[in-house]
C-alpha cells in the first residue's frame, strides 16, 4: 500500500559568514555541506495499518511525509503510495490521500467552514449525494455541524482541527498522512481526535501514518511504530517492542529538605540523585503515581514535587 525504498533527502547547506562581503561571496562560492534530512529509509505499510512515525524535532519526519505526498522529491530512492509514484503523478495521488498539517489549517481563513467544504467539493469533483452523506457522517462523529457557519478564524483550536480532519476526508481517501494533529490541543480535544482516528482506522479500514510528540497518541492509537533519528530508522516494530526497547518512562522530580537514601521499588526503572533532589524514571503501567508518591514520602519530607509525562523528544535523545 505504502512503500519507501531507500528513501533519501539531502540538502546543501552553504555556510554563511557574517559581514556584507562574506555574505556576497557565499552567494557565489561552491563550498557547501550536504545534510541528510532523511537517510535511506525503507518501510512497507499494509492496508489498514495505523503507524506512529516518531522522532525528535528535525529527525526527518515531516520531510518523509512530504516525500510520500509528492511535495518534495527524493534525492535518491523511491516511494510508492497506492501504486502511484508521488513524484510523477502528484495530482493523481492527491485525489486518493488526505493530509493534515497540525500546525496550519488548510481551510479558508475568512470563510465559514461550510464554504471551505464546498470549495473542496468542487476541487475533488464530489457529487451532491456523496457530499451530503459526508456532512451527515462527520457531523455524527466530529460534530462539525455545530460550527459549519462559523468563519475558520473564529474557531477554537480543537474545532479547527476537527474541521481540518473532516476536510481531509471529504474525498474519502484510503490513506491519511497526519503531521502532529494533536499539537497544542487540550485534553478533551485530544481525546475527541483520537476517538475519531481510531474509528477511521478500525471501521473504515483507513491506512494512517501519524507523526506526533505525544506519547499518549502512540499508546492509544498505533499498532506499529517507526522511530527515526537524524534521518535514519532506529526502530520499526510493534508498540510492545518500542516499550521494551526504550521503556517510555514517566518522570517524577522530588526535592527533599535533606539528603535521602532511596530504595528500590518495583516499576521504577532508574533513580538519579543530585544532592537532595531525586529524578525518578518509572513505568506507569507497573506502578501508579499515587502509589509511587506514597513510597517516596517515606524516604524524607518532600519540599517540591514535579511530574513530567514522557516526551518523545527526550526519551529518544536519551537512548540514542
Amino acid at each position, binding site marked *: 500500500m505504502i512503500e519507501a525504498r531507500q528513501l533519501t533527502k539531502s*540538502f546543501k547547506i552553504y555556510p554563511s559568514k557574517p559581514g556584507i562581503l562574506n555574505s556576497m561571496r557565499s552567494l557565489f562560492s561552491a563550498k557547501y555541506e550536504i545534510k541528510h534530512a532523511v537517510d535511506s529509509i525503507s518501510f512497507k505499510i499494509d492496508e489498514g495499518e495505523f503507524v506512529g512515525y516518531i522522532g525528535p524535532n528535525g529527525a526527518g519526519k515531516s*520531510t518523509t511525509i*512530504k516525500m510520500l*505526498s*509528492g*511535495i*518534495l*522529491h527524493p*534525492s535518491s530512492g523511491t516511494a510508492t503510495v497506492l501504486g502511484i509514484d508521488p*513524484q510523477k503523478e*502528484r*495530482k*493523481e495521488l*492527491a*485525489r486518493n490521500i488526505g*493530509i493534515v*498539517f497540525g500546525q*496550519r489549517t*488548510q481551510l*479558508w*481563513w*475568512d*470563510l465559514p467552514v461550510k*464554504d471551505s467544504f*464546498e*470549495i473542496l467539493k*468542487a*476541487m*475533488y469533483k464530489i457529487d451532491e449525494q456523496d457530499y451530503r452523506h459526508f456532512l451527515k457522517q462527520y457531523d455524527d462523529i466530529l460534530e462539525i455541524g455545530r460550527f459549519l457557519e462559523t*468563519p475558520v478564524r473564529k474557531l477554537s483550536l480543537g474545532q479547527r482541527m476537527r474541521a481540518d480532519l473532516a476536510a481531509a476526508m471529504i474525498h474519502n481517501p484510503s490513506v491519511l498522512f497526519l503531521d502532529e494533529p494533536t499539537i497544542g490541543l487540550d485534553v478533551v480535544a485530544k481525546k475527541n481526535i483520537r476517538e475519531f482516528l481510531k474509528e477511521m482506522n478500525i471501521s473504515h479500514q483507513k491506512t494512517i501514518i501519524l507523526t506526533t510528540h505525544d506519547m499518549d497518541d502512540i499508546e492509544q492509537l498505533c499498532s506499529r511504530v517507526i522511530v527515526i533519528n537524524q534521518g535514519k530508522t532506529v526502530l520499526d516494530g510493534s508498540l510492545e517492542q518500542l516499550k521494551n526497547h526504550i521503556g517510555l518512562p514517566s518522570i517524577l522530580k522530588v526535592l527533599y529538605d535533606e539528603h535521602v537514601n532511596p530504595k528500590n521499588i518495583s516499576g521504577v526503572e532508574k533513580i538519579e540523585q543530585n544532592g537532595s533532589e531525586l529524578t525518578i524514571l518509572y513505568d506507569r503501567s507497573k506502578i501508579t503515581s499515587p502509589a509511587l508518591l506514597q513510597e517516596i514520602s517515606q524516604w524524607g519530607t518532600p519540599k517540591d514535587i514535579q511530574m513530567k509525562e514522557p516526551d518523545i523528544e527526550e526519551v529518544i535523545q536519551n537512548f540514542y
Partner: protein
Amino acid sequence: MKLYIKLVSASIRSRMQYKMNFVFSMVSYGIVMMIDFLMLAAILNRFNEVKGWNLYEVGILYGISSVSLSLYRTVAPEIHEFEKYMIEGEFDSLLIRPVSPLVLLLSKNLDLSRIGGALQGMIIIALSLYHISHTHSITMLLIYLPVILVCGWIISFSLALVTATIAFWTQRIKDFQTFTLYAPFNAANYPMNIYPGWLKFIFFTVIPVAFINYVPMLFLLNKGGSIYYLLLPVLVALLFFYLASAFWNFGIRFYHSTGT
C-alpha cells in the same frame, strides 16, 4: 473553470466581511494615482508637451499603464504577495491538491479594491480621448484599445510571475518588485523617447513595458509607427507569458527538490 468561479466567489464573500475597509481602499488607490497624474498635468499644462507628446497623449499612455497594472493587482493578489508562502512555509499546502498551484493561487483571492486604480486609468483615458478627438480620428484607437489593455494585463502578470518565482530562491521579493514592477510601470506612464538609451534598452527587452502602451500608440497617434506595431504587443505578451510560466514551472521543480 467551474472550480475557479466557485473559489473566486468565495474570496469575494470573505472580502465583503470588511465592507468599509473595502470601499476605503478602493477609493484611496484611485485617489493616490489621480494625484500623481494631476502633478504631471500641472507640469504639462505649463510647458505644453514633452518630446512631442502633449498632455492628452501622455494621458493615454498613463491610463493604459495604470489599467494594466491595476487589472493584474485585482486578479492576482496572491502572486503579488507570494513571498508569504515561502516565508511562512504555506506553499506545501498548495501541493497537496489535485489542481496546479498557479490555479489555486489565482483562485484564492481577488483584490477588488484595486479596481479603483483601473477606474482612475479608464477616466484618464476617456478624458484624453475626448480632447484628442477634436484633432485626430480615434475610431481605430477605440477599436484596438481592448486588445492593448489585455496585452498590458498579460505582460504585467508575466512580469509579476517572474518576480514571484524568484522567491523560490530568495524567499523575499518585496524589494525586487520595486525593481521589476513599480519602477518600470512608473516609467511606462510617459513616452519612452524621453529616456536615455540604457533605460530604453531595459524597457524594450528584459522588462518590456514599452509594448504595453508606447509602441502601439506610435502608430495609433500618428507618431511615425507602422501598422505592424499593433501586432507587437500581442506577440510580446504571448512570448513573455510563455517564458514566465516556463520559469515558474522551473521554480516549482526547484522547490520539489529543496523545500524551504
